[in-house]
């Protein structure tokens, strides 16, 4: 089926060579451009007056920071990487500029300060790049550590908003390149775009796409993979630096938190622009357009006066629609699913499997295994599990070190049951999330809808329970069922619509946030029942009841991933979806199951957090998203899927919780804690580094 489809599309391409191929190659970019133009027309039409040059200039500068940062992120993603430090770099450059400019000097050199900003960005990029390219560490966790470290450094440079950025910078970057015709931000973006087109035409540009498509093939073809990767992070860092310079010019001052919340928007812009996560396809020009699409959406929502509660829902839906629009074609997953559905239906009517239609039995003939032959002796435990042990061990070793450090520094730790009890209670949330997020990551996906699945579940539970134990009996199944529906929707989006997991779950997260706001009307009411509160804070024989639950959960989780057909299918899909499919693994069903598992875990955490706090609050899940990813990776899983063990992830959970416990008990300033936290996470993954094969 797919072969004939491929042949057909190839034939189509041959008939109209130039345009067809060009369109196919740049479909993402072209769709993004069309969406943007449509949005622009809408904004123009529904605004009170027609947009003047002045408005146009405002809009151009409004999206420029995001666009510049998205260019950098795109270059990293093209190589198959991932950069979580982008927002933190922007904040750092902002405070560095704002704290080092002399407020008494009447003028400042635009060139000098721009270069300074880009330089700071490139330095952070080089830091990321060295660990990722030469030590072969996983980008997601290296850049996560860098993010924490940079946030700490930023607070050391400037502890609260203030400082001064010379107005010359603002005058230059926000002014006109050609008065009345061309705003400077547009010219700046055009220059960056041209620079990119030049880069793309060089060997470096070709190498970027090559290593993103397949780094082994690229290496065999003579591409210097490590060097290219390092350069990609440095160039990306330079882009974030430029974005930081721009936001400094725009705001005229420093704020240590200014860039941090940009991170998710940056990813959304990249994806909207048609760049594929995982590398090899797309480009920065699309990402710039993606950034302006996101910006226009804000204007549309404003002009239409969409209620604040619906705005995250509207954004989520727009994100999904834009990505779906970009993927409409004969060979998109959605189209395939529709074709296959027809085939499946025909097969179902004929009482056969789809592949049996029109053909006999195509199963391979298999000899029955010889009876009575000597069975090969099973290798000993540590050899069978050598790989799992090697990847899980570093987290545990560091965990033990942190516990020892806590004992020496704060006391009352290693030999006190109270410490261990608190540690397990505090770990319980991440331990549960690690199974869901871990299973999703094992299939090569990522679940970004965790925060508001947690939040909505907790708010719903508290709202239904209202402090009554009887109500808990039916509230719990309702909440769990809703969580499962969320997971099902995520899974169907990924499998049937072919939307990338990040986009699908990001959109779901926004929609869930809106749902939670609508349900609670802004202030969540209700509180947990006495029984649930006892479960999280009471005592049985000196131990909190949830401790026993965590132990049982760990056993179930290990069994589920290692000993059940579902668990084996997860690994099969993660190691190669196509190979798994050809081997008879129901890939779609497994993926949907994995997302449902993740939402189930998130829902459970929402319930437990409500019991722990006594009530639910909006945003209660926000602080669990990045840690849920970090523990999985620190525990030895690989972000592209197929490798990892739940016990390793549990080690990651214990390590991070013990580390936070130690830091919370100390008197260190927050900035130092953030840096230490980042360094320990980085240290944990250095131990996990890939060996060159």
């Amino acid at each position, binding site marked *: 089926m797919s072969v004939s489809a491929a042949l057909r599309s190839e034939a189509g391409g041959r008939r109209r060579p130039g345009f067809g191929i060009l369109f196919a190659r740049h479909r993402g970019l072209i769709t993004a451009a069309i969406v943007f133009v449509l949005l622009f*027309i*809408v904004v*123009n*039409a*529904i605004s009170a007056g*027609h947009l003047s040059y002045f*408005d146009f200039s405002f809009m151009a500068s*409004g999206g420029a*920071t995001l666009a510049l940062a998205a260019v950098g992120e795109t270059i990293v993603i093209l190589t198959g990487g991932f950069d979580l430090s982008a927002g933190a770099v922007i904040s750092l450059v902002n405070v560095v500029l704002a704290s080092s400019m002399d407020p008494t000097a009447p003028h400042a050199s635009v060139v000098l300060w721009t270069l300074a900003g880009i330089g700071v960005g490139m330095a952070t990029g080089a830091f990321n790049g060295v660990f990722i390219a030469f030590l072969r560490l996983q980008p997601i966790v290296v850049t996560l550590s860098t993010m924490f470290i940079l946030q700490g450094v*930023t*607070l050391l440079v400037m*502890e*609260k*908003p*203030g400082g001064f950025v010379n107005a010359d910078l603002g005058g230059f970057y*926000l002014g006109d390149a050609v008065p009345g015709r061309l705003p400077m931000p547009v010219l700046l973006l055009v220059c960056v775009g041209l620079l990119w087109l030049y880069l793309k035409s060089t060997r470096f540009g070709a190498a970027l796409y090559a290593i993103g498509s397949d780094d082994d093939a690229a290496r065999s073809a003579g591409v210097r993979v490590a060097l290219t990767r390092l350069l990609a992070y440095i160039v990306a860092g330079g882009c974030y630096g430029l974005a930081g310079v721009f936001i400094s010019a725009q*705001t*005229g*001052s*420093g*704020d240590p*938190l*200014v860039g941090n*919340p*940009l991170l998710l*928007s940056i990813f959304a812009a990249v994806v909207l622009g048609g760049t594929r996560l995982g590398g090899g396809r797309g480009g920065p020009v699309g990402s710039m357009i993606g950034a302006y699409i996101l910006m226009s959406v*804000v*204007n549309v929502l*404003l002009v239409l006066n969409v*209620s*604040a*509660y619906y705005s995250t829902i509207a954004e989520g839906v727009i994100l999904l629609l834009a990505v779906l629009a970009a993927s409409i074609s004969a060979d998109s997953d959605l189209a395939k699913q529709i074709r296959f559905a027809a085939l499946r239906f025909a097969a179902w009517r004929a009482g056969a499997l789809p592949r049996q239609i029109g053909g006999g039995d195509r199963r391979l003939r298999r000899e029955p295994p010889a009876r009575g032959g000597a069975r090969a002796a099973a290798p000993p435990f540590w050899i069978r599990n050598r790989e799992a042990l090697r990847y899980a061990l570093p987290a545990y070793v560091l965990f033990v070190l942190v516990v020892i450090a806590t004992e020496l520094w*704060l006391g*009352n*730790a290693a030999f006190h049951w109270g*410490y261990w009890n*608190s540690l397990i*209670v*505090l770990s319980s949330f991440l331990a549960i999330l690690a199974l869901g997020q871990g299973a999703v990551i094992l299939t090569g996906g990522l679940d970004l809808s965790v925060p508001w699945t947690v939040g909505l579940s907790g708010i719903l539970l508290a709202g239904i329970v*209202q402090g009554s134990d009887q109500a808990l009996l039916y509230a719990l199944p309702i909440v769990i069922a809703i969580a499962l529906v969320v997971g099902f929707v995520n899974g169907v989006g990924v499998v049937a619509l072919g939307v990338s997991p990040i986009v699908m779950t990001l959109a779901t997260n926004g929609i869930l946030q809106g749902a939670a*706001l609508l349900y609670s*009307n*802004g*202030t*969540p*009411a209700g509180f947990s029942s006495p029984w649930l509160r006892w479960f999280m*804070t009471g005592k049985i024989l000196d131990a909190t009841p949830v401790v026993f639950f965590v132990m049982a959960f760990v056993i179930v989780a290990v069994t589920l991933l290692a000993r059940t057909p579902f668990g084996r299918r997860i690994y099969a899909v993660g190691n190669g979806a196509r190979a798994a499919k050809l081997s008879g693994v129901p890939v779609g069903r497994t993926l949907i199951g994995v997302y449902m598992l993740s939402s189930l875990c998130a829902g459970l955490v929402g319930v437990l957090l409500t019991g722990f*706090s*006594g*009530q639910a*609050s*909006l*945003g209660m899940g926000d*602080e669990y998203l990045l840690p849920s990813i970090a523990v999985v990776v620190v525990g030895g899983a690989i972000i592209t899927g197929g490798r990892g063990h739940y016990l390793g992830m549990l080690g990651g959970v214990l390590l991070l919780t013990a580390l*936070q416990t*130690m830091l*919370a*008990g100390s*008197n260190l300033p*927050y900035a130092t804690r953030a840096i230490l936290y980042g360094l320990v996470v980085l240290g944990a993954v250095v131990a996990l580094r890939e060996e060159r094969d």
Partner: protein
Amino acid sequence: MMGARLLLAGGLALSLIAPMTAQAAQKHKIFLSMSYIGNDWQAEAANMVKAMASHKSLADKVSLEVQVAGPNAQRQIQQLNAMVQAGAEAIVVYPISPTALNQVVKNACDKGVKIFAYDAEITEPCAYNIHIDQEEAGRKTAEWLVDKLGSKGGNIVVITGVPGTSVDTLRTKAAKEVFAKHPNIKIVAEAVGMWSQAVARTELSKILATQSWDHIDGLWMQVGCYTANAMQLEAGKKPNQLIPCAGEGSNGGRIQMLPLGTEVEGAASPYAPLGASRISYASPPYSGALALKLAVEALEGKDVAKTTILPLPLVTNDTIKLCQEGTWEEMKAGCNAFKPSIVPNPGWFASIFSEQTPEVGLEAALVGQPEK
């Protein structure tokens, strides 16, 4: 960049369908730009602004549109620009950053738009600011705690707000200056509480993993006293053994301050009268409503001061008093805590009374209904 004529043509065609708001022309067009909507304080402040806008004294004068910027300053910049484009006469804003908005605020002022910032500050001089004195808040509460612990002093735990914000930095610094003057006060642990009861509980649990309540004599928390008291009860303490806590103005905390055994409708431990030793303060959520009222006054040509420092709402065990209905009149007579049967959420902020805003009472904060 693109065919301008095509755009214009498309725009003209579509503008015929666009809704025409003729009657809005006589009203003042005012926008509210909020920050992150996902917490109790923000939702309450938004309710009070909406209530103020629909009060009979303002309903004919104001058309209010509400927008949420999320936690993202960059986006608020863009939103403010869009509001100016959409013809705002005044913008009431909860500024995500005191400095990042300066340029866009200045631009708006230059176009004649009046900018009113509530709760937090915008440093651009043309903006109107309505907030409490954060240093005073940090200092007064720390002094109360030092006073409570007496000449003996003791070990205290500090839970701060969101690091990197001016409000947190000012409060924490002022409090620490007070503690530094008393060498017998020892800060044994400090954690970041993010102004959330849930985070405060997680952080306190982490601290208690290596400390015990027996060795902590006092708490200074920007948000979290309600939770801290609940945790002490869970640890087996009796209500009369609760340690003094200087912290937030949540209704849960206020109810806990009432003398043990007070009859309160809907109370259930730990959201119940405990006689807890407390000082309760808050950035009051009515500041947005007041900002709107002042914005209308400014548009009508009245003189409005650029900076309005709100009186710090401090409540101690001596001044705590339960409200029956929660009307503005009743609060004026001195009540400052609300029944759990009316306010089921203990994290809800109770400092909603202001001499200057008789338009809004409890109903306003809860559901956005103004006083009659």
